[in-house]
């Protein structure tokens, strides 16, 4: 479960930023997770509850925004979001595709008080 290591990083970043902002409590953390990144939000939540205990992040809500997979056709440059697992360009049917989105994994913002 690599979600554990990932969640450790989320907690560390959130606590650092809260300290910088001299916040007393972290209410909500907004995360962007790419559809292709291979991270399970449910597992991140599970570890978060465990790792944030007794810190100012305890009880914070994790809000996941799922970033869709985005592909660019190398043949005709069409950019599109694949609708199923068979990847092909909707315009020219080429399967030569560059992955241009969907791998994101970052903390976008957070709400503190």
């Amino acid at each position, binding site marked *: *479960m*690599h979600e*554990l*290591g*990932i969640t450790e*990083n*989320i907690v*560390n*970043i959130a606590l650092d*930023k*809260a300290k910088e*902002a001299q*916040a007393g409590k972290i*209410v909500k953390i907004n*995360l962007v997770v790419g559809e*292709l*990144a*291979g*991270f399970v939000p449910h597992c991140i939540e599970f570890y978060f509850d465990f790792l944030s205990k007794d810190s100012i992040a305890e009880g914070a809500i994790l809000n996941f925004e799922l970033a869709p997979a985005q592909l660019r056709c*190398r043949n005709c440059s069409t950019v599109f979001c694949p609708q199923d*697992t*068979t*990847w092909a360009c909707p315009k020219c049917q*080429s*399967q*030569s*595709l560059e*992955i241009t989105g969907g*791998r994101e*994994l*970052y*903390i*976008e*913002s*957070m*709400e*503190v*008080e």
Partner: protein
Amino acid sequence: MKKIEIVQNILEANEFIAAQNQRLLDKHKIFAINIMSSPGAGKTSLILQTIARLKDKLRIGVIEGDVASTLDAEKVKVEATAVAQINTRNMLESCSLNANMVSHALQSLPLEDIDLLLIENVGNLICPSEFVLGEHKRVVISSLPEGDDKPVKYPMIFADADAVVINKIDFLPYVDFDIAAFQKALQGLNPEVKIFQVSCKTGVGIENWCSWLLSALKANS
């Protein structure tokens, strides 16, 4: 309530340590390969074949990170110049190596005595694609019994690979594996990728694979 903008990559810490690992490797003129595959595709076997073929030319170190190691892993210990074992079995996080684990393993290896470092990652096609380790090349092994749809099912790991080794080619008469379809899907994701067809059992194709390794190593030094 106050909103703080952050926009910070969560994998940044891993990437930072990976960059440190690579600087350490470069300082000691070590060329490092991250070998990834599903369990049983042939990582340990390919490492053994590579050592057998190249040990007169290069001093080869191995980082063993595969929990499901077979008896063959014992042979790696005998054949390699030096081996560091990462035991991920007792850690919760056992689906991939990360840069921190490799950084510890590097501390236990005689870096002065190594030219080529082969890193056997944990058997998994999802998680290792997210964690760079400090390697110079990323290699994915796909074996015939697994079927030819792996690049379609696990696009990320194949999109980032420098080389893909199609192993267990000796199975070709017995399984439905469309090599052309596999290559087409793979090259669609990754036009630059090097593809090798090998059998770690019969030794077919190992020479091609090893000459690519040697030339990649030379190009890096």
